[in-house]
């Protein structure tokens, strides 16, 4: 039994039973899961959570899952590491990296997909689907394999076939769609309406969103049950950013941590930064843009949770920062060369954003700051291929000594 009581529209408050639903029927706004926090508070404790598995499913009571058969690849409870080397570079004494590259399919998407696919099976779907250029596609295909479910993954035909190996290995039905990203969006919206499937980020979206809360839970637990002073995280649809915040708020409601005074900072690639634009302009509306960036994993021009991300950044006394493609690549290199973590370009955006926020004094030296690195670098490693610089030598010691500048 779960403590989820139903779904509620985030805009007009209209309530719905727990069912597959994409938006509020009345105002077409996103809906989210509601819980019985009072009932939850009666059973949850630090000890009970600590006795759970070393995965995201240690927080099962805080997720909208009814049965015990979750679809779990071993996701979550990824390392939170103190980043002293990077902190020295940026002038931050209390910097931590939440390394979510270390999930089964190498990104945070496994958290959200694990909950969504588990819920899909509860609802009786035999097929799940998504549209993605990389991380989400791999995660959905892997979870479908584990759950013995059919999977359809829609991919823009412009994505290079080599990038699909990490998806195709799980043998989903891979559908490459001709046309622009807009065409793929439109087709998927129609497919979701036509077929009785669990479409991960359409009719399963309220449940998909809940999985991302576990990032906030873990960071707080790994800090010794306290909220960070500052969070820096990437924003694509804005779902992850808003759910880290929701996770911290829930822990506080349940008195598992103290009051949350965390300043939430979101980062986006300059070529796809509608939320940063709105924040800087003081606007209440996130106007869609057409993405133009190499940071494809967070290139979303029309973010579903854009407005709510904007609200979280404002209400928490946080902010927003963007990074150019060049700054993102420098950020990737800086993270790898100071902390030994090879992140995807979105991680480079986070580090570049963090650097700007620290330099501007928005994030202070002594503030306990967690930077969320949400995907691993190898899937798109060609964007940093310029790092390969070798010492080419003949196979003898003399040649090697010459390279080292040593005498025999």
């Amino acid at each position, binding site marked *: 039994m779960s403590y989820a009581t139903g779904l509620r529209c985030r805009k007009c408050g209209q309530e719905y039973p727990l069912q597959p639903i994409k938006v509020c029927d009345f105002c077409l706004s996103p809906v989210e899961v509601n819980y019985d926090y009072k009932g939850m508070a009666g059973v949850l404790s630090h000890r009970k959570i600590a006795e759970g598995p070393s995965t995201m499913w240690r927080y099962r009571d805080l997720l909208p899952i009814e049965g015990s058969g979750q679809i779990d690849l071993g996701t979550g409870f990824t390392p939170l590491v103190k980043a002293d080397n990077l902190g020295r570079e940026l002038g931050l004494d209390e910097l931590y990296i939440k390394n979510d590259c270390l999930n089964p399919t190498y990104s945070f998407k496994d958290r959200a997909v694990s909950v969504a696919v588990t819920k899909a099976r509860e609802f009786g779907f035999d097929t799940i689907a998504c549209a*993605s250029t990389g991380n989400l596609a791999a995660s959905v295909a892997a979870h479908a394999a584990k759950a013995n479910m059919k999977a359809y993954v829609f991919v823009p035909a412009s994505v290079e076939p080599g990038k699909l190996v990490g998806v195709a290995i799980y043998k989903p039905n891979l559908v490459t769609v001709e046309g622009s990203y807009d065409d793929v969006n439109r087709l998927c919206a129609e497919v979701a309406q036509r077929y009785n499937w669990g479409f991960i980020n359409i009719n399963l979206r309220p449940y998909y969103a809940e999985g991302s809360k576990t990032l906030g839970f873990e960071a707080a637990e790994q800090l010794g049950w306290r909220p960070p002073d500052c969070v820096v995280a990437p924003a694509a649809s804005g779902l992850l950013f808003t759910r880290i915040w929701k996770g911290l708020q829930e822990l506080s409601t349940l008195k598992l941590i103290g009051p949350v005074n965390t300043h939430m900072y979101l980062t986006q690639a300059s070529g796809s930064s509608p939320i940063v634009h709105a924040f800087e302009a003081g606007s209440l509306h996130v106007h869609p843009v057409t993405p133009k960036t190499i940071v494809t994993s967070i290139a979303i021009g*029309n973010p579903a949770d854009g407005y709510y991300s904007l609200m979280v950044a404002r209400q928490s006394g946080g902010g927003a920062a963007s990074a150019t493609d060049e700054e993102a690549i420098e950020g990737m290199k800086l993270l790898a060369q100071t902390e030994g973590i090879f992140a995807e370009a979105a991680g480079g955006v986070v580090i570049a954003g963090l650097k700007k926020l620290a330099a501007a004094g928005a994030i202070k030296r002594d503030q306990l700051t967690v930077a969320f690195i949400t995907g691993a670098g190898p899937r798109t490693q060609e964007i940093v291929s310029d790092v390969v610089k070798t010492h080419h030598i003949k196979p003898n010691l003399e040649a090697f000594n010459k390279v080292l500048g040593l005498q025999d």
Partner: protein
Amino acid sequence: MAKRQVMFTFPRKLIKEPIIYELSHKFKVVTNIRRADVSEDRGWVALELEGDDKEIDSGVKWVKDKGVRVDPVVGDIVEG
């Protein structure tokens, strides 16, 4: 009859044009506005379109050709 939930984003130059009115007169499409925010320089409207698929497709194409951005109301579906 199909239904499609979309968001129109209007640039400044189109704010004063009765595009939604014209859409429902030029095409056999019922327009049902659910949420909107229009200011002097920009505006957006979340609405449901109802009609035959082909009529909705033609109507949406006409709206796009006028210079209005049309997105699914659920936001971008293609993710990284």
